[in-house]
């Protein structure tokens, strides 16, 4: 074990949770309010409120099933209650079977069979209660940092993101990779104009080709609409913050991936195939991106912002690192770390980087982030490819 450790929940498959939640999984959007009621009336539960699962093309239904399985498999989830409507397009039997295979306690309710909303809320609460009591006695044990998978994200960026908060995340990402851990970064849209730099860091020519492939695919998707993507990317907020073009935004965004070689490129529903630094194909929007990190097994997310993005995630703690010193003061109850001190030159990269690294280990061991303390963690969704039909 290296000198860098954290206190986590060791699961039967050897993965380690930084949290120990009962995930309440709606297999389709139509039961979201049943899930919300169960979560509202119980402790230690988190609802995975998404908007998919029916009236989609078969590849997207398969994708939703896969996303739900991977969220249930995330190490921070100790037990799962599946809430099914009964007529959804998601393969709920497969969802249940794959989650039972993890060895975690799993239960399931069916709203149509139980006779509606109110009865399902009652039965769901009773089942959630049993699951909570089953996992609540689990204890944290000390494990090496190499068990950590860190997701990284930048949102509501401005010019300070590229020179303050993203370099700080890059510093921590390099450190995690060097200590044998795993880092996932995405936001393919924000590689546009900077992909050549990432390609140079690919461990093999095939990985470099994969980076080019996902960037071209994302750019073609945006171009197919027949308009200049400016205002969609960069956003009006990015533009007000001084970022003029997607290229400028991207060059600042990729800084958060650090400097180490890229070990592979994975699709949205995939988990990294080893340790090191991995690219996940994903869009730039918070709600889909952070789900993608959790799907990839991230137990903690570092989130960089300049203008002030407040979102968290239901089962993964999100540490907010603000590169803009003015925003940090203005949104101090959402922001965990003031990387604005790097932007102004009052602190060095190493000083702020080490501050974040220490906080990361404390949060992985149970310290709550500001966002967790005020439960800003329910806005999420899964990234789909096709239309709602």
């Amino acid at each position: 074990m290296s000198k860098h450790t954290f206190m986590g929940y060791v699961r039967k498959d050897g993965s380690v949770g930084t949290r120990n939640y009962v995930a309440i999984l709606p297999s389709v959007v139509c039961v979201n309010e049943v899930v919300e009621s169960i979560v509202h009336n119980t402790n230690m539960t988190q609802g995975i409120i998404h908007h998919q699962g029916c009236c989609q093309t078969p590849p997207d239904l398969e994708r939703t099933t896969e996303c739900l399985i991977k969220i249930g498999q995330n190490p921070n989830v100790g037990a799962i209650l599946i809430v099914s409507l009964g007529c959804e397009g998601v393969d709920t039997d497969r969802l249940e079977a794959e989650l039972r295979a993890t060895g975690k306690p799993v239960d399931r309710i069916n709203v149509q069979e139980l006779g509606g909303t109110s009865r399902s809320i009652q039965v769901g609460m009773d089942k959630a209660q049993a699951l909570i009591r089953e996992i609540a006695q689990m204890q944290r044990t000390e494990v090496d940092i190499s068990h950590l998978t860190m997701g990284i994200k930048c949102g509501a960026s401005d010019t300070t993101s590229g020179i303050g908060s993203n370099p700080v995340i890059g510093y921590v990402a390099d450190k995690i990779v060097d200590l044998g851990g795993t880092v996932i970064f995405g936001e393919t849209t924000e590689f546009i104009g900077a992909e050549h730099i990432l390609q140079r860091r690919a461990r093999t020519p095939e990985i470099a080709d994969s980076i080019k492939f996902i960037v071209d695919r994302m750019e073609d998707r945006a171009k197919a609409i027949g308009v200049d993507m400016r205002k969609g990317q960069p956003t009006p907020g990015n533009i007000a913050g001084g970022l003029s073009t997607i290229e400028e935004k991207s060059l600042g965004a990729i800084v958060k991936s650090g400097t180490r070689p890229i070990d592979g490129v994975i699709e949205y529903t995939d988990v990294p195939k080893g340790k090191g630094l991995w690219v996940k194909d994903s869009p730039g929007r918070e709600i889909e991106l952070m789900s993608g990190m959790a799907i990839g097994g991230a137990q903690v997310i570092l989130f960089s912002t300049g203008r002030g993005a407040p979102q968290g995630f239901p089962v993964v703690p999100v540490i907010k690192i603000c590169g803009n010193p003015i925003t940090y003061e203005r949104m101090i109850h959402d922001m965990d770390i003031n990387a604005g001190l790097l932007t102004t030159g009052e602190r060095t990269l190493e000083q702020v980087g080490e501050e974040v690294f220490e906080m990361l280990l404390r949060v992985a061991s149970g310290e709550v982030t500001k966002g967790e303390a005020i439960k800003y963690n329910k806005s999420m969704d899964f990234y789909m490819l096709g239309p709602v039909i």
Partner: protein
Amino acid sequence: MVNAIKLHDEDNVASVFDLVEAGSTVLVVDKKGNSYELKVEDNIPYGHKIAIAEIKVGEQVTKYGEEIGIATSVIKVGQHVHVHNIESIRGRGDWAKANEEKK
């Protein structure tokens, strides 16, 4: 005096981290600590860019030593560089559509 940060030797823009007014002077600072004074021609908001070299129409705008777009009008030294005088060359579905229509 407000600093204008030049991130790379090849850059023709620098970023200011305070509101600067037309007629004032900024100190352009590079990574090595070299610096010189520059007269500001426009009001420039926090986090925005100032031209440190003249950029002609169609010429590349460079930050981080990389292309961040091209100039859509002549940009003089000291002027504000932003969406009113530069554009992206990526994700341009409007260009793709115009090319389709020409065919």
